[in-house]
């Protein structure tokens, strides 16, 4: 039995058409699952439905097998951390953390002890008597986390908790959040639009688009095997070109595109057949660029249009018969200076999806 389960949630606001269409997700105890998608894909709506702030039109929410669909939010014992932190502006840090405990009528002495313990865990013992307005973004973030965790919630929900932090702090907080979540063994749902965040923190990721889950899988599998064009695009397969299937061989296909014959693998469900219109996706960093003559495999000639140094990597924009292709090389790899280049992509790195 899974720890938390949503079954076919249909959620909408007012009389408008639903934002979520049949949202089904299940989490095991102690697991962190990310809801990843662009803004407006329904991920926050899903979170609010799980929290109980919106009643779904259809579907159920189950916690350890018990139907909690009709239980009000304040009885669910879920902790939530919002993007805006949503701290109580009129209460001190300690009072913020104590709020949930006081609502649960915990004894005063115990409240004080637990508040201290949580503030210690997030490293804010010295800030107990400050007001939220006197804290930095990162500190507010920690207060919000301590406040949500202090009630020992059954489930922790995080709604883009790191998006208001600067890049460096975000990277540290990612690690810290994940460490705390694992140490406590708490089940968590993490809403984000940031791929790196989702990949680095999650046990599994559910990619959402237009109110539907496109794919749920572990980060490496999702990264390597996107099931459709949307997921591929979201997973950083930034290059793509149209083509037509010329030959099918096992799991591989030969695609005719821009006068070239390229070997690719099939993506998504259902077999491709000869003559199918496809779109082929690949990642900028899975491309070799060289000045040398043609080698074996998928070789595409091109001309460098633009080149930029990005510190740990070099980026090229190459004009090819397949259109403009972005190539990213690690710094230190052989660099090219010529205008005319050849780029080579492994068959396994080209994924062909049937055109929808």
């Amino acid at each position, binding site marked *: 039995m899974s720890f938390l389960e949503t079954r076919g949630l249909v959620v909408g606001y007012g009389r408008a058409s639903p934002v979520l269409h049949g949202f089904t997700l299940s989490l095991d105890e102690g697991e962190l699952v990310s809801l990843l998608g662009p803004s407006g894909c329904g991920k926050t709506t899903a979170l609010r439905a799980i929290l109980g702030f919106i009643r779904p039109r259809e579907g159920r929410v189950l916690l350890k097998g018990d139907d909690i669909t009709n239980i009000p939010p*304040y009885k669910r014992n879920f902790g*939530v951390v919002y993007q805006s932190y*949503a701290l109580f502006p*009129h209460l001190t840090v300690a009072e913020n953390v104590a709020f949930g405990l006081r*609502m*649960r009528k915990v004894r005063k002495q115990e409240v004080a002890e637990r508040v201290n313990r949580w503030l210690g865990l997030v490293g804010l013992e010295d800030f107990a008597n400050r007001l939220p307005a006197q804290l930095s973004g990162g500190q507010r973030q920690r207060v919000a986390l301590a406040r949500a965790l202090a009630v020992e919630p059954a489930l922790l929900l995080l709604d883009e908790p790191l998006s208001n932090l600067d890049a460096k702090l975000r990277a540290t907080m990612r690690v810290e959040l994940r460490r705390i979540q694992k140490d406590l063994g708490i089940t968590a749902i993490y809403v984000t639009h940031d791929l790196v965040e989702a990949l680095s923190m999650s046990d599994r990721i559910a990619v959402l688009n237009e109110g539907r889950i496109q794919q749920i899988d572990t980060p490496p599998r999702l990264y390597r095997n996107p099931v459709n064009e949307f997921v591929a695009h979201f997973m950083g397969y930034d290059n793509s070109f149209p083509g037509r299937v010329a030959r099918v061989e096992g799991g591989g296909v030969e695609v005719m595109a821009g006068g070239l014959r390229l070997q690719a693998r099939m993506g998504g469900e259902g077999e491709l057949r000869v003559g199918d219109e496809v779109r082929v996706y690949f990642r900028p960093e899975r491309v070799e660029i060289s000045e040398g003559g043609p080698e074996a495999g998928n070789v595409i000639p091109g001309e460098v249009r633009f080149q930029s140094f990005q510190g740990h990597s070099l980026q090229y924009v190459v004009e090819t018969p397949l259109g403009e292709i972005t190539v990213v090389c690690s710094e230190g790899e052989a660099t090219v200076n010529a205008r005319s280049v050849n780029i080579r992509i492994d068959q396994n790195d080209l994924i062909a999806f049937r055109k929808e």
Partner: protein
Amino acid sequence: MRRGRALLVVAILTYLFLLSPFVVIFVVSFGQTLAFPPSGLTIQWYEKAISMRMFRDAFKVSLMVGLVATLVALLLGVPAAYAIVRYAPKGRQYMEFAFESPIVVPALVIGFALLRFLVHVGDIPVLPALLIGHTVIVIPYAVRVTAASLRNFDFTVEEAAMSLGAPQWKAFLRVVLPNIRTGVLAAFILGFTLSFNNVPISLFLTGPGITTLPIQMLSYMEYYYNPLIAALSVLVILFTVLVTQAAERTLGLSKFM
């Protein structure tokens, strides 16, 4: 520099325009007769104003009506504002208009209508009718001012409170209300002064034995021509300032916890 000086002149002139009537009233209130500039100084009018029973009773009525009407208006207006802002219901603009209609309709008309339906038809005694009348004129301000304050409130904070185990009413009292207290306070001060100084409604709804201070002053002026009214005005202004200050001190700084 020149522009700054021009603005300063305008500001001074505006202040003069606004304050000169008060200055005149203040000076006249110490005069022997109702003349400006006064011919001799005295504080007898203050003594008289304070000692006169009719004014003391009227003051008590005004104070009571102002407090009760404003509190009732807030009790009705704050939840209304909360509902309008929080849930943005359909036809919200009509609701807001309905709450604001007492501002649009001339107060005399409201006063007359209330007299007609509450006192004549409904046979309601004078004091409750007066309270109802004043509540009606304060409600628009209670709704408006608290709604403005609620529009600046981030309702995810309320949701956070609910997720932490607070039912909505508790979340409202513990989290929403403390954060809109400046708005509620402003509404209170505005509503109280409005009620305390109101003439058109009270004109219809005061009766034998129960009169508000402004109405009592009005009827006094119909018969007597002396600086007592000026002295009384100074006292009323002073009182209003004191109430405002006191409200800000006590409610403005403390938390609702």
